[in-house]
């Protein structure tokens, strides 16, 4: 791994996981840190509201079955200060989310980062050093 790649990877790590981020509520109360998920799907709905924005995506599994997942992001304030706008994602966009699944096993996850068109965006969510 050359230095440039290493730096990008490390920087992404800083963005994606190492920061204690805007925790409005207890992360561990809702999400299971032992269940990391990576989901690729098509955006069906965006709810742009504090204290947490929510993103919904249709995810197709190996058998072709489609399930709708809800992804909790940080609030719009944190997202805007990170460079997002309410138009950053729209229905039809295909994204890959990295995050952590809900403890109750539902199709819900806390998103750590969103990859869209090759650009990774920190999701400002409650993941990280939160309890």
């Amino acid at each position, binding site marked *: 791994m050359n230095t440039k790649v290493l*730096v990008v990877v490390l920087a992404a790590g800083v963005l994606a996981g190492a920061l204690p981020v805007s925790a409005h509520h207890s992360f561990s109360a809702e999400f299971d840190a032992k269940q990391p998920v990576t989901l690729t799907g098509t955006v069906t709905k965006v709810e742009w509201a504090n204290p947490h924005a929510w993103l919904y995506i249709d995810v197709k599994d190996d058998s072709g079955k489609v399930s709708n997942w809800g992804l909790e992001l940080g609030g719009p304030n944190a997202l805007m200060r990170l460079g997002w706008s309410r138009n950053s994602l729209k229905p039809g966009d295909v994204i890959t989310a990295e995050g952590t699944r809900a403890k109750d096993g539902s199709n819900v996850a806390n998103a750590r980062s969103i990859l869209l068109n090759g650009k990774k965006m920190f999701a400002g969510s409650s993941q990280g050093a939160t309890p």
Partner: protein
Amino acid sequence: MSTRTLCASVTVTLLLSITAHAQWLNYPTPGIPRLPDGKPNLKAPVPRTADGKPDLSGVWDSRCYSEECAQTGAPLAGGASPLFMDLAQGLKASDIELTPWAAAVQAQRVSRDHVDDPFGYCLLPGVPRINFIGTLKIIPTARVTVFLYETAANLAFRQVFTDGRSLPEVTEHTWMGYSIGRWEGDTFVVETTGLKDGGWLDTLKARPHSDALRLAERFRRTDVGHMELTVTINDPKAYSKPWTVRTALNLAADMELLEGSCDNHDKSMEHRRMTPPPPEPPSPGPH
């Protein structure tokens, strides 16, 4: 350039390469000294008011909005200050001695996975914790210095009275308390009482305070871009001796506060599976 510095630079570059569209962000704050390239000169001397006192005016944040700031290792915008998680971060364990009441409250909160944090229910995070979760704006006036706070969940204010009044006998205890301020040299000292049982000093450690907490916050602006903040917790019901934390705030130049409210809180609550919180034992009287 060290790897850490390099990483911070890349991280900030990534952040700044995305254009922010919000109308409250990226508007040049008037009156800030600037460098030839137009960026705020964060190392310029402390601005002063007509009476010669340091002017604390501005939008402040425990987190970073500039490359220079991020290179110090402080958390970037969008995150939370480590002190929001653990107010005593950096102190020795022996610096903090919980009373039996406080230890029991803390143990209950931790055993319930922190789900009872009032901030998680969109209640105010209280002081001093609110200094470390969001962005704040200080507006000094002749007789009161106003602190406006933005978090993802709520908006809050503090009126720090500087008209010479004393701290009152508080009968109504609140999340944010009752504050008076005075100058000690170039340091603005804010004393607060009237805080209620049930407050959380920090999020990860879930340390309680009682209604006897007498909080001292010392703000000392060291240049345009930086403010030292020293917080002293003096709460004999909860801690057998006072303890002090030293930290810093950074000027969030060229941006304003944003509205924060729990518009979408119901959605978050749908995913929370928890029993109603058991009552916490009240702090030992009197109240």
